[in-house]
């Protein structure tokens, strides 16, 4: 069977592309690192790929706001991204990639592709790396989470991860459309503040999807949990489930087949 081709988007300052590529490769995908300039010149075409992944990092140093510059490039260069999404092909934006999807108006989904949310500096005021407990919205149809348990763990590492929405009404819309894919919770599933919610995101939102469930943006890093030995407590042997991140990439690759 042909391996689904995965476009892993690069730009100056993206830096999680190799481990993301390795993750896709290990679940049967055929990842290719593609620089945004190659898409701009037409050397590479988005529509030739089955899956799009925008990895984590600090694209252009996050200098005018996290992911902002790359988001503008995506808007103007990846003009076929909306069609790609409409065709139901999987798109995942991780950390900086999530910030790009939001600032490019892909998430939260709207027909106009207008940006309706943004990110700001963590409430703690600091860049922080930590493992978080997360709850998957079992009501949403996000293809990346198919078959996963409701409660999962993934690490975050960011300084500008606090999701803010343009209006309170948007939150209600997101709930209604089951677009909230992932929330930061305590180990027993409660919505509490810092450090459980590591950045102060509204309604503890850690990830968003579109109503069709083929686009996922999330601050946590699934590519950092693709083997049991990534889990911080693997030496205690208290974690025995399959590594969540790997399952997420596998879902995308299986879907694309």
């Amino acid at each position: 069977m042909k391996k689904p081709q995965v476009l892993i988007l690069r730009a100056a300052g993206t830096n999680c592309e190799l481990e993301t590529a390795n993750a896709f490769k290990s679940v049967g995908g055929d990842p290719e690192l593609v620089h945004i300039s190659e898409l701009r010149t037409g050397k590479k075409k988005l529509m030739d790929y089955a899956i799009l992944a925008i990895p984590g990092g600090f694209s252009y140093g996050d200098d005018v706001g996290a992911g902002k510059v790359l988001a503008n490039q995506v808007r103007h260069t990846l003009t076929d991204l909306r069609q790609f999404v409409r065709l139901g092909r999987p798109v995942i934006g991780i950390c900086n990639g999530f910030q790009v999807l939001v600032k490019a108006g892909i998430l939260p989904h709207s027909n106009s592709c207008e940006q309706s949310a943004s990110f700001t500096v963590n409430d703690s005021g600091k860049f922080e790396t930590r493992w978080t407990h997360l709850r998957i919205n079992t009501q949403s149809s996000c293809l990346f989470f198919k078959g996963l348990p409701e409660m999962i763990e993934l690490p975050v590492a960011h300084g500008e991860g606090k999701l803010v929405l343009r209006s309170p009404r948007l939150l209600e819309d997101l709930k209604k459309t089951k677009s909230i894919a992932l929330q930061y919770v305590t180990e027993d599933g409660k919505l509490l503040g810092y450090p459980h919610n590591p950045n102060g995101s509204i309604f503890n939102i850690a990830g968003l999807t579109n109503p069709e469930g083929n686009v996922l943006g999330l601050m946590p890093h699934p590519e950092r949990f693709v083997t049991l030995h990534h889990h911080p407590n693997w030496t205690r042997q208290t974690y025995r489930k399959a590594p969540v991140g790997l399952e997420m990439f596998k879902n995308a690759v299986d879907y694309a087949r």
Partner: protein
Amino acid sequence: MSQLAETNPASFPILGKSTKELRVLSDSRHLSLSDAEWAAIQAHYKTLKREPSLAEIETIAQTWSEHCKHKTFTSPIRYTEGKKTRTIKNLFQETIVAATGALKKPWCLSLFKDNAGVVAFGKKWALAFKVETHNHPSALEPYGGAATGVGGVVRDILGVGLGAKPVLNTDTFCFGRPDWTGALPEGSHHPTRTLRGVVAGVRDYGNRMGIPTAGGGIWFDDDYRLNPLVFCGTVGLMPRWAVKKEVKPGDLIVTVGGRTGRDGLHGATFSSANLGADAPSSAVQIGHAIQEKRVLDALLAARDKKLYGSVTDCGAGGFSSAIGELGASCGARVRLEAAPLKASDLDSWEIWLSESQERMVLAVPPKNLKALETVFAAEGCELAVLGEFTKTGRLEVTHHGCVVVDLDMGFLHTGLPRAERAAVWNAPASVKPAGGASKKPSEALREMIGHLNVCSREWVIRQYDHEVQGGAIVKPLQGVRHDGPGDACVIWPHAATGDMEDFSCFAVGHGLNPDYGRIDPYWMALAAVDEALRNLTCVGADPARAALLDNFCWASPEDPKQLGALIRAAEGCRDAAKGFGAPFISGKDSLFNQSKDEKGKDLPIPGTLLVSAVAPVPDGRKAVTMDFKGPGNALYLIGRTNDELGGSLYHRVLGRTGGEVPKVSPAAAIDGFKALHAAMTRGHVLSAHDLSEGGLALCAAEMGFTGEFGCLLDLDECPRDPRIYSNETLLFSESPSRILVEVKPENESAFLRHFGKSAKSAMVRRVGQTTANPILKVTGLEGTTCLEESLKELKEAWQTALPKILG
């Protein structure tokens, strides 16, 4: 040559000038040239029958600087130890290099000559490791100094062999205590400001470059308040074929990356003098991490296409140093007008010497230039051809057709006169512990666990992205709640190798304790090597395959006592390398860490040695963490406890002085480490943690509160010097080479077998067991409980100490 005659406006007349006049010149331009060096330069130009140009003087001053030439370590020293005096011809060769050479390890691939040390990592890969210091810049401008320290050492790794991919950053700092309330001299920063700035600088540069920062440490001592130490380390991986580099005459000199500006002038020479209020602010460079990331991506792509024959980074001395070194054995012709500039009004010498960041220099065969341009353009990274390497043996630099440097490479690289320095060392008399008020063990322990040199570094560690590249399979923060003090991280470099099936990993450990050095730097050095190897061993690295790096940070070597202490430390390194069978593969010294304090008195830093060690973890899935794993498990103590409280944390909290400094027996130590490693590879070890500051009590407490189980210890079972009759000594002595290990009851006999015949000199005894109740309970020599502490409370004291000060 005629263009360099006296009429040249850029000429810099020195012929016929007196020593005094030259000193004034030296000071006004921050050249840090000595009288003897001036004399050699005068003599050279006398034979040339001309005056030097300004750019030539700057080039010589930079090339001959302590920073670039390591004069102290390579020049003759008249060394008096006690009543004996002898001459050391070359301290570096006679200690570090000699010990490494004697070990003849076949897995050492490149030693001391390139930008980093290189060892084998499996069959296909080579691992490069370098630790740099950026002390003077971080004292002037903590954020920028530390950030460019990271940027600089990352470029060292990009510039070793044909370039390695950085896979780990390590950062170790020495600061004044952040709660300092005394006065400070004008122009110096409060230690808290320094700490915040340095941590932020390391964070922003490392995180932006996508390199995990997952190793290091912090040491606080008031004597660092004017001269903080910032050690930046990077580990990189490259394919074996990329280790060798070669410059061929005719190769183009190509600069890639950042543009050249006025930032970072005189960095090399200014760091070769004592730090004072007159330090030039332009000496600190301005970093741009994303620019360096572009260089990294483009360079490694060009490497894999084999488009260049050699590469080095522009560090101290800028083009002058990079091109001067690359062309040292052939010659180089440079046209400065080709260099991309940040500002158009730079003088020739400024372009030539600027230490602007994110620049590398490549030697490129002309036929490859087009392909190279394509690779760099694809990453949006600038590139310019500055000239070519020649066969002339000369360094020739022109600017718009005007000759600005025309130097003989031979004079430049070997013309430095070697002045003999004097050094003195007097062994300290053995002093009985004295002074301070006695404290109950429980009280002392509580104070120690909240001490700044022991307490949790979570405030710092969480700000670093230690998980990027998906390789940290043993993380710096460990245990049930991911907040305990790991001994070392274990890195699975699959992002660099592309191989997720192969679990070959490596670990990096560190050792540093200037308090031991205050008593005897020789034993400080041995203890630092011992500590670095202990840390590695505790997480599952192979201690027989460890490679070492030294970083000496010292005050002025012009003070014979300081230099004598430095020699003692270097000799300690030599004996440690030999004794542990661990070669040094790279190192660096940073001297003149000395300033005038608020009263105008000299404040030297304590002689400081950071030892960094790297070793393979053959199978990362067998790595071990330091948290207790369950109740009812046996606790074994490896290594003998002696009455060695000199320089200990216990003495520090009591305010006591004197006592014996911990002394290492490398042969016994390495046997113990090897036996433990063998037990780990067979899965017989649940947790392991080394005994360092605070000794057994602190070690057991940390393992307990990180794993959320308690333990019972019996001091009478400790392998020890039979002359010890004090519980406090057994609890808090800092005898080296000791590790506390948790073993499942059913594995005890299998575990002990590893310590059989093959490790006769290792001492291992069952000293207690883990318990469900999170309490540290210790039975003293007299058979009654001498310490009983709630681990929850100890953990709170350990966790809150730093946030209390920093918020």
